[in-house]
């Protein structure tokens, strides 16, 4: 019996196991333990949460391996970490550290303004951000085994997450109503691989799991993204920039399970203290938006 590692099925499969769950940004082993205790299905290890990256400015890079190692040792759930767009050496390092999923992320400062990482070349799976179907399929073509809609990280404003999720879902519905002979031109317009466009039409959904990210700050936000078709949610600054992180984290986990049940949502949304302060995306100058990074 031959055992084969790093296959497409095991890469995509881990994301399938995360569905219906919440992946939380953490910057210390203590945060990671709070996230695990609250019921996170995975944690994202990074040096600063996106709202602090936004505030501090400068170049945002892969986190210190020592910090990542500390988080890996602190929890038994999967640990993800971010590499800069196109920075395949950061990805090599994260794979060597034993990270379970790499996020090639627009939240960090891009290392390459033309090319993303060739993700097929790795055994470890990758998740990438998208704003629309074409961007999602380009990333999957490069080997991403999981997608997240980008939203606008570090704002606590859900508006961009909604825009991106609706864009992906609308384009999928449009493809389903299209005759096969028009898909060639559509693939060209979407700048996406034809075989993936054909697959999406046939199956009526993305070929990999799609989480929502970038702006989730409350249980209601998480449930909204699930109602719009997300398979699960990433929460960044929304937890550890709130008044009561353990309580908010647990409530968002419950909301992601019971997203169709308003009575449960009402109960778990009660008494959580102040949510993260938040920044309206409409008030941000264009050059401060992270979602535009990625090609």
């Amino acid at each position: 019996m031959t055992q084969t590692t790093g296959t497409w099925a095991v890469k995509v499969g881990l994301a399938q196991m995360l569905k219906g769950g919440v992946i939380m940004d953490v910057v210390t082993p203590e945060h990671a333990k709070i996230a695990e205790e609250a019921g996170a299905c995975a944690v994202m290890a990074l040096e600063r949460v996106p709202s602090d990256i936004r505030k501090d400015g400068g170049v945002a890079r892969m986190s210190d391996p020592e910090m990542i190692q500390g988080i890996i040792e602190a929890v038994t759930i999967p640990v993800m970490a971010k590499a800069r767009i196109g920075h395949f050496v950061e990805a090599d390092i994260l794979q060597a550290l034993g990270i379970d999923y790499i996020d090639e992320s627009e939240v960090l400062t891009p290392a390459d303004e033309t090319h993303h990482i060739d993700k097929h070349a790795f055994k470890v799976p990758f998740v990438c951000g998208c704003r629309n179907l074409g961007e999602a399929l380009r990333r999957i073509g490069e080997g991403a085994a999981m997608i997240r809609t980008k939203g606008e990280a570090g704002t606590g404003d859900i508006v961009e997450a909604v825009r991106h999720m609706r864009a992906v879902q609308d384009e999928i519905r449009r493809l389903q109503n299209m005759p096969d002979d028009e898909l060639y031109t559509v693939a060209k317009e979407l700048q996406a691989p034809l075989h993936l466009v054909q697959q999406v039409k046939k199956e009526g959904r993305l070929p990999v799991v799609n989480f929502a990210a970038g702006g989730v700050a409350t249980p209601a936000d998480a449930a909204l993204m699930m109602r719009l078709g997300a398979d699960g949610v990433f929460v960044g600054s929304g937890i550890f920039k709130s008044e009561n992180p353990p309580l908010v984290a647990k409530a968002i986990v419950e909301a992601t399970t019971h997203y169709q049940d308003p009575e449960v949502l009402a109960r778990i949304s009660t008494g959580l203290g102040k949510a993260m302060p938040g920044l309206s995306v409409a008030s941000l100058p264009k050059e401060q938006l992270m979602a535009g990074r990625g090609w």
Partner: protein
Amino acid sequence: MKKRVGVLALQGDFREHREVLESLGHEVREIRKPAQLEDLDALIIPGGESTTIARLIISNGFQQPLRDFCASGRPTWGTCAGAILLAKEVDNLDRPGIETMHIAVHRNAFGRQVDSFEADLNVRGLEGGPVRAVFIRAPLIQRVDPPAEAIATLDDGTIVAAREENLLAISFHPELTGDSRLHEFFLTIGTPAREPAVEVAG
């Protein structure tokens, strides 16, 4: 015969199980509240993150209703995280699961995600040759105690599937490979109740 099968839908890959069962012509219900267990013929506890599902089982009052369901003799199947939750003994899980099946399980037994793998595997009692088994941060079954028995092992003897009367625990993911033989097999394992069926709390 068409059956009504529940898939515990607290977290994990419940949709994949639902789709396999629907392709076999069964009625499928996603279970998010204990009261929904009442009129099912069988139940699947899917793959997912076992620590997350264990918490949601407790916070949603599922622990005793799930124990009662297992004791009622109806087929109950745990895949990966689900197998961890069925086991009487688990190392490295910080919450009790359902703790009903006489097996001891070791979580994340094969290492981290880069060590996740696929292999062809023979399952005792399953006709038509080996299944393609996908192991994702998978648990292994360290020990089976009677009346539980091993029904599949890797070449090195590691137990990756076990059965105890109406209970089935499997380390890998038959719901991911498009081969529905294990789902069909599962729906045949129901036995008469081991003890009188307990009224499920609402």
